[in-house]
């Protein structure tokens, strides 16, 4: 069974744009003249290249359609005081303030502050409230203070 994904509106737009772009590329590719299969007695390298590109496009379209088939846009929860997917959280850790957006794994991008709900830290933050101290324990423990939660 496919996993359900919870995307932000922005995340969903990004996936849809990618799918649209691939569908357009497929359409253009289908207009091209398919190279001959055989070049004398051997498989034509141009045909193999063409086939590889088409297969790659089809595979990516298939995967994207699979994701988009079972996607829900993250909604503002009834309880806005708890960290859930879609939350913007202000934290303090090791005397430093920062802001995270907790997102589905397929939308995660730590360089943009989008932390996956399935990362070690993301998992610990989910379900917590403003004011909570969240310890991510292991050999090197870090304590995150949740200063504010926004949706």
């Amino acid at each position: 069974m496919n996993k359900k994904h919870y995307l932000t509106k922005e995340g969903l737009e990004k996936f849809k744009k990618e799918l649209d772009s691939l569908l357009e590329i497929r359409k253009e590719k289908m207009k091209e003249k398919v190279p001959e299969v055989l070049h004398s007695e051997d498989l034509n390298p141009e045909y193999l290249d063409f086939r590889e590109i088409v297969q790659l496009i089809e595979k990516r379209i298939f995967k994207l359609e699979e994701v988009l088939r079972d996607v829900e846009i993250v909604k503002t929860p009834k309880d806005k005081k708890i960290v859930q997917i879609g939350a913007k959280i202000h934290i303090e850790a090791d005397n430093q303030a920062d802001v995270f957006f907790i997102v589905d794994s397929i939308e995660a991008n730590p360089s943009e502050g989008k932390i996956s709900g399935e990362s070690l830290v993301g998992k610990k933050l989910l379900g917590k409230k403003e004011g909570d101290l969240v310890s991510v324990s292991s050999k090197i423990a870090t304590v995150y203070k949740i200063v504010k939660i926004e949706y």
Partner: protein
Amino acid sequence: MSEIFKFISQIGELKKNGRRGWQIHNIDNPETTAAHSFQVAMLVLTIGEEKKDFDVSRAIKMALIHDISEVYAPDLTPYDAAALDENEEITEEYLKNIEPVIGRPNTNQRIKMQTIKKELEHKAMEKLMTNLSDNLKKEIIDLWKEYENMITPESRFVKQADKIINLLQGMEYWKNGCSSIQYKLWVRRAKESIDDEHLVKFLKNIELSL
């Protein structure tokens, strides 16, 4: 063939480029960009084979090309992001004059850095691909864009593999006496960034080795 010869000769520069993050820590004979890319590709190869429904060979190609823009683009680090003035417009010119800060950038600084970095790397990729055939240029640029876009499972995995190898190298330098590497901060950042189940286990191994 002469176009491929030129391209491969240019790529060879990455065997000489010591990664800038290590230079900021004053590490002698720092790991090069080429060495880093090799190790990322090997991690992708070994763990990639265990993953279901995963195009290992595409991921390996991505790992091999993920930093080639550094032939022409600056090797910008989180330390450069940490030095950014959030109220300034970040341009190529502005970046030439900042002094990196050994510390952790906040999200706003990261986002600003990502924007300019993508722009500079895209320009560099176009310059690097100038002499290649249209098909080869398209293949490499597509791989690079896929890696940057992080939409496919392969690209997300390679992005995380890149961070893991960076952490692994950083911890080796720290264990060998580079005390300016804030190892706890590095491990913390990895725990925020890694969610692939295989790489989380690998991360735990790194932590246990410290």
